[in-house]
């Protein structure tokens, strides 16, 4: 995180744009947008110092709904784009927004390497266990028995466990939130942004249109019974055995972030030519 300035007394509205979301009424992502703006206001970040980067999908529409700099890129590649931005512009606060299809399926490999690389950014995945924008196909987090047109009778394939993957791949901060709790989510996002290195926040964000069954999530989620651990082994056991509805900051690592020195121009490029001179 960069450019903190708590003297500004910013309001969440300062971070919202006038672009009207395309989301369905009742979509969890409205609340996530609210959590974004609350977290930014809480941290007092100047909007022009924040970059919100995304891929493709319902959740990836979020950058244009903020009043920050945004990049709505191509499907699955937001983390790579954000990595290039952050290493060359360490002064910016970089937040990456994704969904379970964009982030865990087409973008799965980048997820592993972003965790491993540990560049200082916050990765928010709005997980609704379905491809919403293409109208209801199973995603890597869809339950195996969930019936869809593309997989009649269910996929029969075990879902992906993003938090465990994040931990094993080296993420430096791991949390789970529920979109229906925007204040709590905003607090976690603020912590994630402040934490050095790669912070991963999975937000359960129901798709009312294609997964009406997810309306019960609000009754299933529960606050984690213990605070965040610094111990990878303990975190692994907790994440492997939790019920998928455990909400809160679950792991805080202390790996130093990757940030090469940039911007210093020690020598003129003409000096590089000397290697070639006869």
């Amino acid at each position, binding site marked *: 995180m960069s450019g903190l300035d708590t003297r500004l007394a910013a309001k969440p509205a300062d971070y919202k*744009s006038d*672009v009207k979301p395309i989301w369905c009424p009742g979509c969890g992502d409205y609340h996530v947008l609210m959590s974004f703006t609350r977290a930014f206001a809480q941290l007092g970040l*100047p*909007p*022009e*110092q924040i*970059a*919100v*980067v995304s891929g493709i999908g319902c959740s990836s529409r979020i*950058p*244009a709904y903020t*009043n*920050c*700099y*945004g*990049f*709505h*890129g*191509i499907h*699955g*590649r*937001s*983390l*790579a*784009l*954000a*990595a*290039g*931005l*952050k*290493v*060359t*512009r360490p*002064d*910016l606060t970089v937040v990456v927004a994704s969904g379970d299809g964009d982030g865990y399926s087409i973008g799965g*490999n*980048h997820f*592993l*390497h972003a965790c491993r690389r540990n560049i200082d950014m916050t990765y928010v995945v709005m997980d609704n266990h379905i491809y919403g924008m293409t109208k209801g196909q199973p995603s890597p987090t869809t339950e195996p028995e969930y019936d869809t047109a593309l997989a009649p009778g269910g996929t029969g394939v075990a879902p992906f466990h993003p938090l465990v993957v994040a931990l094993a791949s080296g993420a430096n901060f791991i949390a789970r939130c529920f979109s229906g709790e925007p204040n709590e989510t905003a607090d976690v996002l603020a912590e994630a942004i402040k934490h050095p290195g790669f912070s991963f926040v999975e937000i359960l964000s129901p798709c009312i249109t294609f997964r009406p069954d997810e309306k019960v999530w609000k009754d299933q989620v529960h606050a984690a019974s213990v605070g965040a651990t610094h111990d990878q082994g303990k975190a692994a056991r907790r994440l492997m055995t939790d019920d998928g509805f455990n909400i809160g900051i679950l792991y805080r690592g202390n790996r130093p972030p990757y940030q*090469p*020195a*940039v*911007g*210093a*121009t*020690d*020598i*003129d*490029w003409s*000096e*590089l*030519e000397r*290697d*070639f*001179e*006869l």
Partner: protein
Amino acid sequence: MAASPSLSIAIIGSGGAGALTTGDLLLETACAAGWHGLYTRTLGPQIRGGEAAGLLRLAVHPVECLPDQFDILVGIDWLNAHRFGAEIKVGPQTLVISDPRGGEPPPMVTQSGARVVEVPMKEMAKAIPDGRPNMIALGIASRLLGFSAEQVSAPLEKRLADKGPAAIEASLAGIKAGFGAAAGIAYGTQLATPRANTARRWLLSGNEATALGAIRGGIRFAAAYPITPATEILEWLAPNLSKVGGTLLQAEDELAAINMIVGASYGGTPSLTATSGPGLSLMIEALGLATSAEIPIVVVDVMRGGPSTGIPTKSEQADLNIAVYGMHGDAPHLVLAPQSVGDCVFTSQWATHLAESLQAPAIILSDQFMGQSRAAIERPADVAFIGARTLAANIAGTYKRHAMAANGVSPMALPGTRGGQYTADGLTHTERGTPTSGAADHLAQLDKRRDKLDRFNFGDHWASVEGEGDIAVMTWGSLTGAAREAAAHAVADGIGVRVVAPRLLAPVQPERLAAALEGVKRILVVEQTHGRQFHKYLRAHYDLPAPVRAFNRPGPLPITAGEIHRAITEWR
């Protein structure tokens, strides 16, 4: 003894025999002594232990292509030499040095009518403690070419400095023995004395030249995923970018590499990645994103044989189609092609400047031959083409990232600029950048992105146009040197030939080409593809004012000056 302005030598050995080192040292010796040279390494697919050959042409003038036939061929051994087949041309005039214990010479030698002289290089090396046959070969070749032992020893000592005095001594002893063996070989030609040359000269590969040109043009970030034959660009940039305040990030794949540079450039840092055909295929979607979002980026494609994995270690020009037409939708962008090792510096710098000025992606089509050849060149002139992006500052009111502008280039707000917040998008957008599916907005932005390229004045650098005459040889990329040499032979025969080689392949320049071809009676199109991609590209975009013939062949066999010369003279 006759003095020749140009001599060529090929050194062959199985992998690990040191043939390539011998070639490198011959090149370094010759260039330090004032000659010009071009040296290319050719290898089989094996990482270690396959066949290897160093192909070297030395001259008193700049060299941009290999010869039609080698004057000297040294076989340190012949174990895998047959795999080169037609790649290394041997003829009756060739002197072949062969080790009687190095296996049977391949048919390309035995059927050529070449004079074969046997020298027991292995045995001679054994007589020297830690001696190596390739150093005997170096001594023989040096003596035949007309170098002194002193001239050879300087680059050798530099190269072996890390290995200590014993290694240097063993090598020098080997070279001395080679000189002794060559004394008994009657060879009537030596390289002519080089002209006194006061210009500053460089010895570098096309890949290094491309990387240097990029830094000259302002590139300060590179994303890297290794691929043959482009990796050297990235390996050169890794330490050197950090010296100029930039950095390089290794990506997990080419998809990540291209998106990393889009992100870095969005943040204001001129950015590049380098790859080859398979990588370019993976990068195409993001090249469309950069086109739509108007983010300048530079992608170098060092072409190799294709399609698919193709021939990774050998050259071809068959990525022209994907570079020009690869993206879905109407996606105007820049495609450029350097024409020689030296021109890689200029073209890479110019491409960076154009991408930045026009807020559009630029693809540079280099190739394996040019990229991995080392050449002695005169230091390229400093040119003023440095990244010049139009930025938005002091923004008041609503910022329109993609606002219409007379030249199509709208000022870009970089993150951190107050009031300039916008979302870059691959979705069709309004002037402000907001997504839309409206017909008018779609058309307006398509027009904008086309017009900014079409209205730009690319100047004389768009092509090299040389010579006069009613025959035009049209070619591009690394074949330009061979075409120029063929034209020079034709002119010596009294046939007027002009060589027209576009350096800028997209956007096309119809008026400029029409002027370059004014008055021609025949157009010979020369390219290293199987599907005549360049020929079809010319046919699609230009009114060619005269009958056209295509002379094309896919890789890996190089197209030589002699072949182009014959194609010119046969069409009379």
